[in-house]
């Protein structure tokens, strides 16, 4: 990719920042850390953009960076402890009072659903089910064989469905 065809960091930010943010959240990055991690993604992009050769699509390259930043963040010791301590909350309130509450409850339900997955499966689910990549692209971003990505997706779906059903059964 030559300098003329390479988008500027500003363009990349405008086109992708909101989705990078969303991806980081769904990969389990705490809300308070999301701006910092988002910044880390874009600083990394800034550092590496000149060496991006266009062999992969810009979007898959960008999400590859995003996945690595989130993964490294999760491995930081203090984050590991926080994750272990922060059990996903289960709402016991009868009815959400407002639209805001409802939205918050939906967000928590998504988090509970994703939290039953290990990191590998969660990445596949986020990239395929939420971010809309093809499975081939998912495998490329994660650097795993396509068949492995399929296996992770199927296993993840079964786990999520099982957790969802268990939650429904437990609801009075």
């Amino acid at each position, binding site marked *: 990719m030559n300098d003329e065809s390479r988008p500027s960091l500003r363009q990349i930010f405008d086109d992708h920042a909101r989705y990078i943010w969303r991806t980081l959240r*769904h990969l389990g990055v705490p809300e308070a850390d999301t701006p910092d991690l988002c910044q880390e993604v874009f600083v990394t992009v800034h550092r590496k953009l000149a060496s991006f050769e266009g062999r992969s699509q810009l979007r898959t390259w960008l999400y590859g960076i995003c996945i690595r930043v989130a993964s490294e963040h999760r491995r930081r010791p203090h984050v590991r402890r926080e994750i272990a301590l922060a059990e996903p909350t289960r709402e016991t309130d009868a009815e959400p009072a407002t639209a805001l509450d409802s939205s918050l409850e939906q967000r928590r339900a998504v988090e509970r659903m994703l939290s039953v997955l290990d990191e590998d499966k969660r990445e596949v689910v986020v990239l395929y089910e939420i971010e*809309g990549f093809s499975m081939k692209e998912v495998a490329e971003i994660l650097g795993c064989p396509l068949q492995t990505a399929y296996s992770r997706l199927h296993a993840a779906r079964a786990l999520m469905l099982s957790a969802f059903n268990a939650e429904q059964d437990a609801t009075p």
Partner: protein
Amino acid sequence: MSQTDDPERLAEATPRSPLAGLFVSAAQDLPSDEQLARLAAQLGPVLNSPPVGPPAGTPLMVKLGVTAGALAVLVGAGLALRRPAPPPAVAPTAPTAPAQVAKALPPAPTPAAAPAPGSAASPDEHSPPASSELAVPGAANAKSSSSTPAKAPSEAALLEQARRALNTAPSHALQLANQHRTLFPHGVLSQEREVIAIEALRRLHRGSEADQRASGFTKAFPGSAHQRMVDEAAPK
């Protein structure tokens, strides 16, 4: 971008999956315009600067110049986003990933090997994490030098000085790079510091130290955009 042999996404599947609603909701969970605007403002100088790392074949000093040009904007943005330092005298903070990176790098030369006049702080293995250092660049310095003025050089300023000294006084450049390592062991510009230090060592004909530091760089920052510069500065 779905392919024909990909399974139906749960949000669109028929019959409707019980999980469909959650995935529809997840896709709508985007940051607010205010959150994005804040992020853009904090990244502002970086967003409008040219990418780091010119193409291969560019002289090393030019590359370093380009890199250093980005230093100020990177640091400016980096510092802006870091949260304030935690109050002092709390329980020790767990090491962060950059701390592991710092450990992977070879140790900085001792003060005896590379005396740093004006460098007040001594290497501190238990330095606070990056966020607090970056929020208060002078904190580490102030801790060990009560007689020194409180104002300490910023990450970018220190490295810019080091870069400028490379041509005329590589030993001073190395001192400044090592001073940066002491003051900002987990700084956002650690990669750029190492590039300068390796080049300075090479100019001082301290080849084995340059090689050692270059190996540490490769280990600590695999896939770095600066690897080519490091290889050129410390040829095997």
